[in-house]
């Protein structure tokens, strides 16, 4: 009988595989490199050490930082609370316990997906059409996609933490709610509170990007400085943002170390604090009044609904979008584990944390501009710019996960005489691979949305077309593009679920 062997990469190698794409990108960079922008890069680097300390600039930045914080905290807490609720409702396990069926969860998930497909910047622009300049526009613009993303993560967590006690409890005649409280909830506290904590960092960065609306905020100052290439003033803002990120992160860590149960009460309570703070700032937080008529009136007035769909050559645009997203996804996923293996030690984790923090801190459009100073525009470069920004987020996730393993597996392997690299590869990295890959799949969603803010590198992709349609107030085209993004998101999601399935089963086989 012939012996058949299926060659499968070991689990910890899968997160490293996307890193292979870096070779391709390197080749493109070598082909397109020009180096003509080195003086500008030098200016940028020098400005980091000499940020502007002009009192007018600092005053405006400090005020902006407060507005950004208020918006971030409000949208973080709203999206956390709603997201946990919606997440539980869209978990298959929940419906199985409650009613013995799975379909309501699947239906709810699929219905929520389109909301996720639209970048918060574009939600902001859409809501602005209806409500005008108002703080709540920014809060809602962040909260909508964040709530839905949070719901997806929570639902997946619920479904993958099914306790073997559940059937026993059910068999013993416990009511569905009692089963959920005793069998389902306890193992979920840790992953959910970790994720909620992590989202505050994201909300802060989104609030910065949303500053472009003129709600004040640090983002307004940063984008204005970027537009005029005033790097010194920009660095003052970036340093302030960095400090805010570190302080918030530290506070949340402290909070989690006290008790993980605290995260949800804090998320519920913090909007009130933020609201009280907001009233003392130059931020409009009165209840907005919608003027739906203008948007719908414009839409109904035109009869070019179908012809609008023909204005874009869809295959090219979709191809570019998928390509950029894939490249960015590979870079974002592959880079952190690679860096970790280049220098595998516990001491280096802190330094790596700083590197990923810097990547997160620098907004993607700025990364794109800096890369353009080195190479000619191409889709690969656009992907690299987005990928570097998101590798900051993935790096943070990886380090957090690895820290939470406690390094026991690495010590075990080391005592068996393995080299440090092998220790880390088959130790901590293997432990966290599955969670990391799951998170990488969520990240693809975000990257797809982020193609909206990379117009600089060739103006390609669906996101950019959406910005262009919005700036022409071409509502029919906006609708078509949003629908197409939603379809792509849904496709990506079902593909992602399948991949997760494959990785999980491989993990079982190990």
């Amino acid at each position, binding site marked *: 009988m012939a012996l058949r062997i299926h060659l499968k990469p070991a689990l910890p190698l899968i997160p490293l595989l996307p890193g292979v794409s870096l070779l391709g990108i390197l080749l493109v960079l070598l082909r397109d490199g020009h180096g003509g922008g080195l003086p500008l890069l030098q200016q940028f680097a020098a400005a980091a050490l000499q940020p502007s300390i002009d009192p007018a600039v600092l005053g405006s930045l400090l005020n902006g930082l407060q507005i950004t914080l208020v918006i971030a905290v409000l949208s973080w807490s709203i999206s956390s609370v709603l997201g946990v609720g919606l997440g539980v409702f869209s978990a298959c396990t929940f419906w199985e316990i409650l009613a013995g069926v799975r379909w309501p969860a699947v239906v709810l998930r699929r219905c929520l997906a389109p909301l996720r497909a639209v970048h918060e910047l574009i939600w902001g622009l859409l809501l602005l059409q209806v409500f005008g300049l108002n703080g709540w526009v920014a809060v809602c613009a962040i909260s909508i996609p964040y709530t839905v993303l949070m719901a997806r993560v929570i639902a997946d967590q619920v479904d993958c933490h099914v306790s073997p006690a559940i059937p026993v409890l059910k068999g013993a005649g416990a009511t569905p709610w009692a089963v959920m409280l005793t069998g389902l909830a306890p193992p979920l506290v840790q992953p959910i509170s970790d994720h909620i904590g992590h989202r505050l960092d994201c909300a802060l960065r989104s609030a910065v990007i949303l500053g472009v609306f003129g709600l004040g905020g640090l983002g307004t100052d940063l984008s204005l400085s970027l537009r005029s290439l005033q790097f010194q003033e920009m660095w003052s803002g970036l340093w302030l943002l960095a400090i805010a990120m570190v302080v918030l992160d530290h506070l949340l860590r402290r909070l989690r170390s006290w008790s993980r149960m605290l995260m949800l009460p804090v998320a519920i309570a913090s909007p009130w604090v933020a609201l009280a703070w907001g009233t003392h700032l130059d931020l409009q937080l009165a209840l907005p009044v919608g003027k739906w008529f203008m948007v719908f009136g414009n839409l109904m007035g035109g009869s070019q609904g179908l012809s609008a769909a023909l204005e874009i050559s869809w295959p090219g645009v979709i191809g570019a979008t998928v390509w950029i997203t894939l490249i960015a996804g590979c870079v974002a996923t592959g880079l952190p584990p690679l860096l970790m293996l280049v220098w595998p030690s516990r001491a280096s984790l802190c330094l790596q944390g700083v590197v990923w923090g810097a990547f997160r801190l620098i907004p993607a459009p700025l990364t794109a501009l800096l890369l353009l100073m080195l190479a000619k525009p191409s889709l690969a470069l656009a992907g690299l710019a987005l990928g570097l920004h998101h590798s900051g987020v993935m790096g943070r996730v990886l380090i957090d996960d690895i820290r939470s393993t406690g390094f026991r597996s690495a010590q075990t392997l080391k005592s068996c005489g393995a080299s440090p690299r092998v220790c880390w590869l088959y130790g901590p990295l293997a432990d966290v691979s599955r969670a990391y890959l799951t998170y990488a799949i969520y990240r693809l969603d975000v990257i797809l949305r982020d193609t909206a803010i990379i117009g600089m590198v060739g103006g390609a992709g669906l996101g950019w077309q959406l910005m262009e349609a919005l700036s022409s*107030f071409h509502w029919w085209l906006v609708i078509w593009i949003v629908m197409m993004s939603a379809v792509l998101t849904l496709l990506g999601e079902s593909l992602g679920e399948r991949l997760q399935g494959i990785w999980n089963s491989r993990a079982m086989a190990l």
Partner: protein
Amino acid sequence: MLVRESRAVLATGLVAGLALTASVASCAAPQNDAKQTVLQIGAIPDQNPEKLNRLYGALSEELSDQLDVSVRYSPVSNYAAAVSAFRTGSLDLVWFGGLTGVQARLQTPGARVLAQRDIDAEFTSVFVANGASGLRPFTSADQLVELKGRRLAFGSESSTSGRLMPQYFMGEKGVKPEDLAGGGPGFSGSHDATIAVVQSGAYEVGALNEQVWRSNVADGRVDPDKVSVIWRTPPYVDYHWVVRPGLDDRFGEGFTNKLQSALLELSAETENGEAILELFGAERFIPAKDEDYVMIESVGRQLGKIR
């Protein structure tokens, strides 16, 4: 374990107490919603944006003195957002570019053009090229066909001088966006960034506002060996002040006309006026009419930026 639990209880209590205090405080604090009696002014983010705050602070003060109403400046750093904020009534008086001003007026029936700078009546854009591209200054507009197959960067997608008019003049000579290298232009996001990406060589050609080009050259931020002007567009009208309808009802009869006069009377002879005009890069403001922008509207429609 006990210590941790008591800490958790303490922290929960603290959080709850803080939330309660804060919600009471937020109910008691006055809402800063005095929109009706405040003149809200704004501007599209175009040139020297970091100066915008300083500039509009001074302008708000000046208008407030002249008109005896409170004036508040809201920075908006996205062109489409400025148009929408104007339409929804969040901004009353906005400094728009040619295209965005027309978009705003079309979406806000009754809105009208108040004034423009002396330089806006005959505004120009320049095409700049990287020395390595081999492009030399054009002697006639017909040479725009040489741009076919080149990597070209515009500024912001809604910019009149950084995108609309350059694209229009290229189209006149049969150069369509899809004829460019990469299947379309790149959008650097601002005039200053256009200079940077062309100077570095990432893009071979760029189109931008001539005023910004000149000020960059004057400040020594341009390396003349690497980047130079290859063509200047024919003149067109650009930036202007647009005002919402209904201000007379809110601030009193004849307010819109008074506002127009206040802008037109800004002069370099007063200290505040001099600072404002200098930041605007103008000698003075001159009257402007809706009809002056008919050409921009038709170009906007032709290129699909106005629906």
